[in-house]
């Protein structure tokens, strides 16, 4: 009990835990669609490509989210243009565009005074979350979360069968754009906590973990954020006591949990399915 309560006596730890848990939940919900559509690489791309947008927003004093949205849009457009108008395949197009934009962001940071602030964007600065940061994350996170939940059925239809979506008069293009917009928004939310480099982990691992645990999308939407939130709180505690980098510890915890699920999930796991088979065989032998 003492172990759990001690970190909470510091305000910065409380802020870190609240911010991370919130970002983890929003990212996890979004990740359910990303892993099913096969947009993990796109998540990686967009989360890196927003960096120059965030830096420019910082320079001109605009909201980070605005800069991020603009550059997410730029990245997606560029990827589409390179893919459609040259013989370069999509994965190469994604790699070229996001790494170039990310590099542009790094260059912009290096020429911008007050570097400390901006370097936090790259690796996250969980323990230095200020009250305004917290409010921004809270507002953006709640908006993204609300849209995702309200539009979850349309987004799932888009992920599963865009042709049917079109046939019943919905616009797959608009739904895809909505998802990309939310991806950009969510990236900004998670930047604060784990940083640009590791956002993609929060955008993929929870959904992939939940996917190994259930055959129902509605349950994925509960399992993914629950696991993600628990992992992020656990990660912060571990980093507090082991004195390690907090954002990285959060991601590492998520990775370890994925590994455990991958091995032991009763229906999909590598070892779990074998154990279940052995149990059935034993039961059958006993029945004879």
């Amino acid at each position, binding site marked *: 009990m003492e172990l759990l309560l001690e970190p909470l006596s510091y305000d910065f730890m409380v802020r870190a835990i609240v911010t991370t848990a919130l970002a983890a939940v929003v990212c996890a919900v979004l990740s359910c669609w990303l892993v099913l559509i096969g947009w993990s690489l796109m998540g990686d791309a967009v989360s890196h490509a927003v960096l120059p947008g965030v830096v420019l927003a910082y320079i001109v004093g605009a909201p980070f989210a605005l800069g991020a949205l603009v550059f997410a849009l730029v990245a997606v457009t560029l990827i589409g243009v390179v893919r459609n108008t040259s013989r370069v395949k999509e994965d190469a197009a994604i790699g070229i565009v996001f790494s170039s934009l990310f590099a542009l962001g790094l260059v912009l940071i290096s020429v911008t005074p007050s570097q400390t602030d901006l370097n936090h964007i790259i690796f996250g600065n969980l323990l230095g979350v200020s009250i305004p940061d917290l409010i921004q994350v809270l507002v953006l996170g709640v908006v993204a979360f609300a849209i995702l939940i309200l539009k979850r059925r349309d987004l799932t239809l888009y992920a599963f069968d865009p*042709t049917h979506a079109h046939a019943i008069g919905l616009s797959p293009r608009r739904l895809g754009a909505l998802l990309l917009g939310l991806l950009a928004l969510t990236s900004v939310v998670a930047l604060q906590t784990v940083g640009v480099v590791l956002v993609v982990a929060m955008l993929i691992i929870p959904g992939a973990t939940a996917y190994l645990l259930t055959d129902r999308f509605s349950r994925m939407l509960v399992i993914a954020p629950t696991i993600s939130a628990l992992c992020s709180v656990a990660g912060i505690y571990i980093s507090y006591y082991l004195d390690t980098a907090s954002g990285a510890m959060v991601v590492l915890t998520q990775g370890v949990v994925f590994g455990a699920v991958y091995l032991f999930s009763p229906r999909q796991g590598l070892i779990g399915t074998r154990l279940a088979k052995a149990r059935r065989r034993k039961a059958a032998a006993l029945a004879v």
Partner: protein
Amino acid sequence: MSTPAILVDNVTVHYGEVLALDAASLTLDPARICGLVGMNGSGKSTLFKAIMGMIKPDAGTVRINGQSPGRARREGGIGYVPQSEDVDWQFPLSVRDVVMMGRYGHQGFTRRASKADRAAVDEALDRVELGEYAGRQIGQLSGGQKKRAFVARGIAQGATTMLLDEPFAGVDKRSEATITRLLRELASDGCTILISTHDLHALPQLCDEAVLLMHRVLMHGPPEQVLQPENLAMAFGLDVLNRDLPDQDVHARKERTA
């Protein structure tokens, strides 16, 4: 004169330099089942996309029950059964979830299911005899059951025009017969059905009419006539005469060549 259920008038579609449809024209009356026959790359999928309004033709017009495709889509009149390979069968959805997607066009902003929606889904599932499998993940159905699940989605939707892309690929004979019976029932209720297939065996039992497609509509008539070897040769090239044909046609050809 009644309004045709599907009217495709001189539709031309290019993909870049490639010509996919060349002034294709097709008129289909309501409550008919029409088989669309052609090779891979003959423009079958493109014709479907043009009917659904997913691509804008370079020339020509499409009307569904006298309406533009956009209007017909918004009214929920167009049902679509995808090709098996276009579906992610690992997707974590139950059969009921998939059929419920047919109701989305009738629902509000968040697509919350009403009692009427649930009743329509149950009725559609019973109609295709999948009631007991409603809770299964879609990938855990047999080939024929998978097809029926998507037909049920069209039924729940209340579609008056149904487009089926290769419904008999990977489906065993018994399921094929079940699907054929089901589609005939739907047609007798007034649903217009267009089926793309290269399974020529199933055509005579299933279809009222057939269309031979090779970028343009080569022939449109009763299945027996369209399936004549000399007609098939126009769409498939000559090698079709040695395979893929219903047996009696092969015998007939042998007699003629003998």
